[in-house]
Structure formats: C-alpha cells, structure tokens
C-alpha cells in the first residue's frame, strides 16, 4: 500500500516557473520624485521568501541533471 508521502506532494507542487518567474525590468518612473519601490511590498523581497530560495536550489540541481542527460 502506498501511504501518504509529503515528498511526492512537495515535489510535484513546486512550480519553478511560477515561483521564480521572469526577471521584470523596473519601469521607469516619470518624475524625479516618483517612488521607485512599491510601498506595499516594502521590505519584502523575493529572496526573503524561503520557498523562492528552495526553488532556486531545485532549479540549479535540475539544470545540472538535464546537462548530464543531454551529454
């Protein structure tokens, strides 16, 4: 009997594209005094999110694995 294994769920639900996403270029502000950062998300960068850091580690390992497969 295949019991509940959180590793399967965790691995299957880790959507790298969604978590890491594509780097967005900061939009140019119109004036000199225009705020450069979104005040709502102040102090909350992506790198502070543990899930983002885990996704980055997984991406590195997966890329390495793909390299091995292709070679």
């Amino acid at each position, binding site marked *: 009997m295949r019991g509940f294994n959180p590793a*399967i769920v*965790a*691995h299957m639900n880790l959507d790298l594209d969604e978590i890491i996403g594509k780097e967005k270029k900061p939009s140019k502000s119109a004036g000199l005094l225009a705020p450069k950062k979104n005040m709502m998300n102040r102090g909350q960068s992506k790198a502070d999110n543990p899930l983002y850091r*885990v996704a980055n*580690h997984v991406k590195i390992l997966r890329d390495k694995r793909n390299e091995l497969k292709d070679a």
Partner: protein
Amino acid sequence: MLKEQTFDAPIPGMSMTHELGARPWQSPPKYATVDDTIEYYLERMSSEEFLDQLTDVMEMGVPITSIANTMQLGNVMEGVHSVDVGMLVLPVLVEMMMLVGDSAGIEYDSGLSKEAPMNKKRTRNTLVAKTARKLQIQLNEQDGKEDKPMVDEPIEMEEDMPEEKPKGLMGRRQ
C-alpha cells in the same frame, strides 16, 4: 479486500509520557533557516560513505521520495530542524538524490510516478536476495542435520555375542 493494519502509530497519550522539552523535537532546532538546513544536507550527502549507501539503496528499488521523507523525519526527531523546514527542504533532497543517481548511472525509482519503470522490466534485487537467503538457511539446516550425530535414534552396536547353547533335551547339538 482487507484493509492493511499498521501498528507503527503512536499510542494515544504517548507524547505526554515525558516532560515537556525532554524530547529533541520539543527544543529549538539546531538549524532554523532553510539555507542552513540545505547546507547541512548537502554537506552530509557529499560524503563518500553516504553516497555509496545511497546508491545501494536506490539500486534496490527503494523510491527516492521515501528515502527523502525518512531522512527529513529522522532529523526532525533528532532536533536538527523543524517540521516546516523539513517540508520545504524535501524537493531539494529529492532533486539531489536524483542527480546522484543520474551521475552514478544507475536505474532508480523516483517515486513520483505510480508505477516504477524498473520494476516492470526485471526481478527486484531485494526479492533475489530474500530468496537466496532462504535457500542458504535451508542448505545450512540440511548440512547441520548431516553433520550432527543422531542422538535420538538408537545406536545399534554389533557385539560379538557368544552363541547361546541349547539347553533343553530336544535341542540340537553340533
């Protein structure tokens, strides 16, 4: 179909049989962040001894997801990291083990698909080992029986018994 019984679950109230904080998982974990925990695992998994053992287990057909879950659960119990950090770290462990399997060039079961592809093709190594062990036990038992002196059976000794001479009047005489 009968439901499979599992007896490895804790007894209700078992968690209260010790003082609060006496268990390793009730005290603050050694590594509190995901980064520290990943570093700990990567360092541990890069040792040669661990890699040899891991490849052996993977070759036996044990799913990688099961190995990863067992590892993180064991470390939670030892107070290395917390349960939530363990859950976050799981995909890294699975991916790392898959990388180890690929670099070693072995066929492994990731545990992510319902059917293990390696189990379809060939007989499981564990099954072969189990059968070989049974056969060895049987052979040992047989050898033991042959070597052992038979104590239970009466030993018939041929002795030079003097022939009884007929005693009666009608007895033949040589």
